[in-house]
């Protein structure tokens, strides 16, 4: 093929510099235990986990057009999964996080099949009902504390590391790694062929269908990935809290309201939107807390 003189460049010089800076930033963050205090680490952890949640919701609603007010279902599921697996199966809590991803993905499959029968705002409420079902179901499990919940036993917590400081480092790195993985995945997903399908889908389902985009499959895959990643994030959140209860795990106001706030403030349907929104949220929270 003759070189027509036109080139499609995916990586311009500016974006290479940007990428380098980003890598540097991530590297610095991994070194946070060195330069940051314990409260710094805790705040950063929280920030990273919230950022992950917001980015995932943004992927689902902003890019795939599925507005969910029930993502707390998977958040709580991940938390409970970690507690159950760590307490009853003796699995290292940190290992439970990626396993929570797998099981979160699995359980979201039948859910997706069900609620994809609804559209638009009714889909949104349907996701809420699912979260309610999760909440009520877990409240019935007495071995996990029933309606009042349970705390993670010290002996289980010590499985991560016997030293408290080291535990906090591990948790932090886990949160950072999770955020990096999720955000990187989202970034490359959106730049790929599937990302193009998503954007087409968001703009017009009918037109997307007519050019061969398999709507149902695309939506399904995005939904189950988001569910799994949210479950992993939930697992980590409750690992850090060391306590779980149905109301805390599946609260609409805590999680969904936050996420919606962040995404609306930061902008929906952009990659940087959740980042900006989460930053603003945390600035507001820290300054107003005084």
């Amino acid at each position, binding site marked *: 093929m003759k070189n027509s003189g036109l080139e499609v460049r995916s990586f311009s010089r500016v974006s290479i510099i940007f990428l380098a800076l980003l890598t540097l930033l991530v590297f610095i963050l991994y070194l946070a235990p060195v330069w940051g205090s314990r409260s710094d680490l805790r705040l950063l952890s929280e920030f990273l986990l919230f950022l992950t949640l917001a980015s995932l919701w943004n992927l689902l*609603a902003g890019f795939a057009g599925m*507005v969910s*007010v029930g993502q707390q279902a998977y958040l709580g599921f991940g938390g409970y999964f970690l507690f159950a697996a760590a307490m009853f199966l003796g699995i290292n809590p940190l290992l439970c996080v990626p396993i929570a991803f797998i099981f979160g993905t699995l359980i979201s499959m039948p859910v997706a099949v*069900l*609620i994809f*029968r*609804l*559209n*638009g*705002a*009714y889909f*949104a*409420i*349907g996701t*809420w*009902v699912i979260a*309610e*079902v999760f909440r*009520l*179901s877990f*409240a*019935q499990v007495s071995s996990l504390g029933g309606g009042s919940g349970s705390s993670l036993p010290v002996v289980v917590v010590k499985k991560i590391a016997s030293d408290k400081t080291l535990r906090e480092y591990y948790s932090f790195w886990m949160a950072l790694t999770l955020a990096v993985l999720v955000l990187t995945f989202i970034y490359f997903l959106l730049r790929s062929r599937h990302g193009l399908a998503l954007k087409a889908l968001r703009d017009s389902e009918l037109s997307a269908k007519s050019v061969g985009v398999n709507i149902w499959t695309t939506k399904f895959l995005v939904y189950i990935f988001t569910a799994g990643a949210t479950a992993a994030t939930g697992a980590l959140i409750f690992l850090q809290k060391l306590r779980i209860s149905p109301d805390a795990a599946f609260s*609409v*106001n805590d999680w969904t*309201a936050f996420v*919606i706030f962040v995404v*609306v403030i930061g902008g*929906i349907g952009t990659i940087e939107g959740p980042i900006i929104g989460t930053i603003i949220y945390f600035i507001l929270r820290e300054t107003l807390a005084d």
Partner: protein
Amino acid sequence: MDWVNAVLQGILLGGLYALFAAGLSLIFGVMRLVNIAHGDLIVLSAFIGLTVTEVLGLSPFISLFFVIVFMAILGYFLQRTLLNRTIGSDILPPLLVTFGLSIIIQNVLLEIYTADSQKLNAGSIETQSIQIFGEINLGVLPCIMFVTSVLIIAGLQHTFYRTPLGRAFRATSDNPEIAQIMGLNKSHVFGMAMALSLVVVAVAGIFLGIRTSFDPSIGPGRLIFGFEAVIIGGLGNLWGTLIGGILLGVSQSIGAQINPGWQLLAGHIVFLVVLAVRPKGFFPRVEG
């Protein structure tokens, strides 16, 4: 006999759920809007009823008229100033705005009334019952409420299909642009639809308040019941909504009979089953 009783109680409860659903269904039918604050507006009505009964010393049934008028005006005003701006092809703005409204209402109620549980006192009629089949006791009040619910749904049907206002609703819902050319002010028509919806909400709220105790946080739960009744019954069909409400009420009642902690879960599961096998509900009329 306990089971028969449970089913009957469930049917009567279903009348209340049908009221929750009717207001929701009406709005969606006319302007494709799902009001996330719907349940909170029901709870708001109950609290307004509470204040009216306390301040004016009236029975909840009399105060109902004040609440109806107040909510109708609120609905019209809310639609014309706020919600009309959100209506369009994007589903996100109305969702976000009504979600925000829901949170605002809950917090305002919390501020004014605290989180304490409240109840509307309807007097001695609350304990009266009638006996049927020799062994079954049906509360007089639930029966009155059920009959009222049926009458209200019949009234809505009549309004929709036999009055100029209903004609305006249907035409504007079909084709908002051309409806305007007929001389219908779209903003006004939507405002009237919301006002009518909140009239139903007002009745639902007072009934709720008399039947059970309530507090600022129970709104979202009512929204979910209304939503489930709409989906079970079928979109766009008000009588279907009644059936949906009854099915939901009966499911919950039977679930509670098996195990008191299973009441809500039973209802949700029946909803999911219907969603799985009859996604369009039992008597659908419009596309969701």
